[in-house]
């Protein structure tokens, strides 16, 4: 059994979780405290990756960052290489897949923070950003961590979106999920079973930690 696809999956999932974490926590912070016009639509758009077929999501990404698109061309001009069918594209795919899990969990936890604590911090002179960083974020820490672990598990297991925008290139963009598919197609059952066991162990461990964190909320007095 080759460990390379599993290691790549892990690397992609770590980077994707970090990126989706930064964007997702910021989005959750804004959405939990403000009611902007169009926030319902934004909520639907962020949640959509949870329910859309991964190929549909991959298609949207391709028409957004493909080589012939303005974004794709801009990326190619800046970096000298195309975005699609690279590891960066695999990270992008996994980030999009992980984002809704992070936003949903973090937002729910942030909305649970007592608004009087937010008000008290403001009357003590704290700017909205300082209130977010010193009161809202610490008090919703477990929900945010739960979201990050769920997002990590989702990023680790992505198949469809990655296949569409990053392809299935052994040694370059072939992640664990894609390698399992190839192994089964080629009737390398033992190899497939080995990778399935490792992926399952990772995902279940992440979900277990996530579930524990949601349940063991501190300060719930």
């Amino acid at each position, binding site marked *: 059994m080759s460990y390379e696809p599993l290691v790549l999956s892990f690397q992609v999932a770590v980077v994707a979780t970090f990126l989706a974490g930064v964007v997702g926590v910021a989005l959750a912070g804004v959405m939990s405290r403000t009611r902007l016009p169009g926030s319902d639509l934004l909520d639907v758009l962020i949640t959509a990756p949870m329910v859309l077929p991964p190929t549909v999501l991959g298609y949207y990404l391709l028409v957004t960052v493909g080589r012939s698109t303005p974004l794709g061309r801009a990326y190619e001009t800046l970096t000298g290489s195309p975005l699609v069918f690279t590891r960066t594209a695999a990270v992008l795919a996994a980030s999009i897949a992980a984002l809704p899990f992070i936003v949903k969990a973090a937002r729910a936890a942030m909305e649970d923070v*007592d608004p*009087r*604590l937010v*008000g*008290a*911090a*403001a*009357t*003590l*002179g*704290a*700017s*909205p950003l300082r*209130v977010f960083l*010193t*009161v809202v974020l*610490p*008090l919703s820490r477990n929900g945010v961590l739960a979201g990050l672990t769920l997002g990590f598990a989702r990023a680790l297991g992505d198949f469809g979106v990655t296949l569409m925008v990053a392809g299935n290139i052994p040694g370059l963009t072939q992640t664990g999920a894609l390698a399992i598919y190839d192994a089964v197609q080629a009737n390398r059952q033992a190899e497939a079973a080995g990778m399935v066991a490792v992926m399952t162990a990772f995902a279940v461990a992440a979900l277990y930690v996530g579930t524990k964190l949601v349940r063991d909320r*501190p*300060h719930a*007095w």
Partner: protein
Amino acid sequence: MPGEARLLVRLLVRARVPGADGGPPRLDVDLELGAGITAVIGPSGAGKTTLLTTVAGLVTPDAGRIVLDGVALFDDARTVSVPAHRRRVALVFQSLALFPHLSAWENVAYGLPSGRRAARRERALRWLERAQVAHRADRLPSSLSGGEAQRVALARALASEPRALLLDEPFSALDDELRGQLGADLRALVAQLNIPAILVTHHREDAASLGSRTLALSHGRVVDEVAARTPAEPPQRGGGGP
């Protein structure tokens, strides 16, 4: 002393407020706040809490004007709306709203200017000493008694050096003995700092014992001013003697 109350600031609140919590749709209050505590009493729904949260900037009026000491905090005609964190109006919530993840001294230090941690702790401890709860400086709020938490909340509000102190039913969860002690300490601190304070309560006894004057609020308006009286003072007898 109540009789020596010197005029400090004028508070004008004429505003249409979103009546989300059963409060009145309009506030129409024009107060001259002296040094010491101005108690505001009134039944539920009179607008007591709405008055405080509106002045503190936690509720934004739909229209109207809020002026504190000549400074417009909100004025829809001039599109002025000073955010809560720039108003320097401290509010002690009925629930106290101590940050549960921070120790007592960290709660107090929250409103202090930024600086070295040791210096901030030092300053916070001095405030906790003034509120007579310095021995609980390193405790989390969940391990404080009701009276101790009350003192920490007061220290936290005062440490931010506010232009005005607002107190929303601060002693509602305490027994009579503790109310008396805390009330005396609160009056002393407010007198030392010489800042205007508004205390809202639905307990006439709290208003009478704490306030240098007591105003009755109804439907968002001041409808009556109850003469200042300390509990030790005998009731005034009108008319001629024997």
